[in-house]
């Protein structure tokens, strides 16, 4: 196949148009199939990428104390004890938690910081470099500032402590979280102030975060800690990755059933095509042979016909999926992935992050199959004696 034969291409195009209804049906099903499958792939690969990004910002190991099966305060003495373990290269006692602002039905995420401690999160590092926080000040995200503003808290905010009294903290500045949508409701203040708000005593915190320089040792050290602290919940970064991988289990129901239906219809079409052509179609092939086309020419034209249809449907399907997922952020269907996993799809940016291998896979599953299904019966007919035409 050297040059594209535009005459045959034109013929193929007119052939498609002449059988409009049937071809519209084929294109619709094909497009739907491709669109569904690509939507599935786009959403999951995009979510996975984003989650992995988030996890990369977290500490290697996080330890929470549990009492009566519920998270409890953890003591700084434990941190000192853990730092003795070889392989743990740094650690800190974290004070953080959620604060429910009932007036505006908002939940803030409060993070206590120590200006001189190790800090992994690049956003926090940047903010702490920029601002010097005293014990009576805090930094809030833009979203939080808006919420507080709406409640007429413009320069400071009164947190309600567990004993009912108030803790007034001045808003030093508001910051932009950029694409870190998961930090939309973040408030940063000094650890000691936060301790007062949450009712933690002086040496206590919400969890301990540890760094392990050699990721090879991560699992081993996690197990060591679990043995050392039977009452604690020890979560390593690897554990999180595994859990998120598990969450994106492709067997999740609704999507698969939609997909199966589309696949089923697609294969019915293939079967129908592969099983033979209508007498009209046979006739046309006969005529072409009679006027001097050889089998190769007929197949050439049929190839163009199948390619035009399938390429068009494929591209359309991918485009629809793309717009649906990345422009409209997958309304309705996207929730299937996140509601089950208790994540909120609204919290995800769904940045364009496509793995080309998936697209290639969808392409190979659909386009060549369709082309083959078109060519095979045409070949069978074209190689028969075309004397039916003479009648």
């Amino acid at each position, binding site marked *: 196949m050297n040059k594209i034969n535009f005459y045959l291409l034109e013929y193929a195009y007119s052939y498609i148009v002449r059988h409009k209804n049937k071809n519209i049906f084929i294109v619709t099903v094909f497009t739907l199939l491709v669109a569904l499958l690509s939507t599935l792939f786009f959403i999951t690969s995009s979510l996975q990428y984003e989650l992995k990004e988030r996890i990369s910002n977290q500490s290697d190991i996080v330890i929470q104390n549990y009492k009566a099966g519920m998270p409890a305060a953890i003591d700084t003495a434990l941190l000192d004890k853990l*730092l*003795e373990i*070889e*392989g743990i290269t*740094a*650690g800190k006692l974290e004070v953080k938690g959620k604060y429910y602002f009932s007036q505006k039905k908002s939940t803030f995420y409060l993070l206590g910081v120590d*200006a*001189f401690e190790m800090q992994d999160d690049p956003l926090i590092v940047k903010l702490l470099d920029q601002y010097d926080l005293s014990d009576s000040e805090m930094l809030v995200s833009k979203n939080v500032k808006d919420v507080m503003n709406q409640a007429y808290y413009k320069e400071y905010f009164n947190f309600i402590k567990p004993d009912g009294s108030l803790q007034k903290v001045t808003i030093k500045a508001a910051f932009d979280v950029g694409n870190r949508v998961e930090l939309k409701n973040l408030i940063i203040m000094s650890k000691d102030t936060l301790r007062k708000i949450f009712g933690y005593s002086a040496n206590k915190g919400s969890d301990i975060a540890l760094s392990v*320089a050699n990721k090879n040792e991560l699992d081993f050290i996690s197990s060591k800690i679990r043995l050392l602290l039977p009452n604690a919940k020890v979560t390593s970064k690897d554990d999180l990755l595994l859990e998120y991988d598990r969450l994106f289990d492709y067997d999740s129901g609704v999507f698969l059933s939609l997909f199966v239906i589309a696949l089923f219809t697609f294969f019915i079409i293939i079967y129908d095509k592969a099983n033979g052509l209508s007498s009209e179609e046979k006739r046309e092939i006969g005529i072409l042979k009679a006027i001097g086309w050889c089998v190769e020419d007929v197949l050439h034209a049929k190839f163009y016909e199948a390619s035009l249809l399938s390429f068009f449907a494929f591209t359309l399907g991918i485009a629809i999926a793309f717009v649906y997922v990345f422009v409209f952020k997958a309304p309705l269907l996207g929730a299937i992935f996140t509601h089950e996993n208790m994540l909120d799809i609204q919290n995800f940016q769904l940045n364009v992050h496509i793995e080309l291998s998936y697209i290639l896979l969808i392409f190979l599953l659909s386009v060549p199959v369709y082309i083959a299904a078109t060519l095979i019966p045409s070949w069978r007919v074209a190689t028969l004696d075309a004397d039916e035409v003479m009648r």
Partner: protein
Amino acid sequence: MSLFKLFFLFFVFVSTLFAYPNYSDSLKSKKIYPMGKKIFQKKCADINVNNYKSYDALVDAIKNTKGCRKLKSSYQEALALYLWDVQREAKVVEKKYPSLAVSHKEKCPICGMFLYKYPRWVSMIEYKEGKKVYFDGMKDLFKYYFKHKKDIKGIYTRAYYTQETIDAKDAYYVIGSDVYGPMGHELIGFKDKKGAKQFLFDHRGKTVVRFDDVTAAMVHKLDE
């Protein structure tokens, strides 16, 4: 009061004067020194630790410095320990070693594997005329080393636990552990004996050796 009690009281009195805090080395190097360093850089970089003859004098000076006098006492202590131990006594020396970063094309001369895939295991011999040869583990490095011992400027590897670059000649190696490198059984390097011993215990290693203890026979045994 008996003489003994007197001595005892005197001892207690004296020790509280010299209030040099007693923390473990791990705690100090992992938590206190990094914090102290940050405080020093951010708040009062103008303190010169060499001006003070005792630890207590340093502590007093900090309490009077403009930048650092308002800090919490725990921060001041961290700062003092950092300045005293690291800057003055050089208990923890921050040495500068050549980087062990490799390009995508670098291959180990013994086994031919691409080194960029195994950044945790990269080890290097630097020769006096400037040539640097990289390996995917100490085992392969030793194999090469035994045949090219002349004119070496330095040998470097990564400490297992901290991933810092260390001087291979000063390091402690554990053989026969259940941790495999890219070439199978390896000599795993540690900055200090304590780390090597802990690793030996954790990962069922057979022995701890130093660089000069390593023989060709030992290395070959690892390949069996």
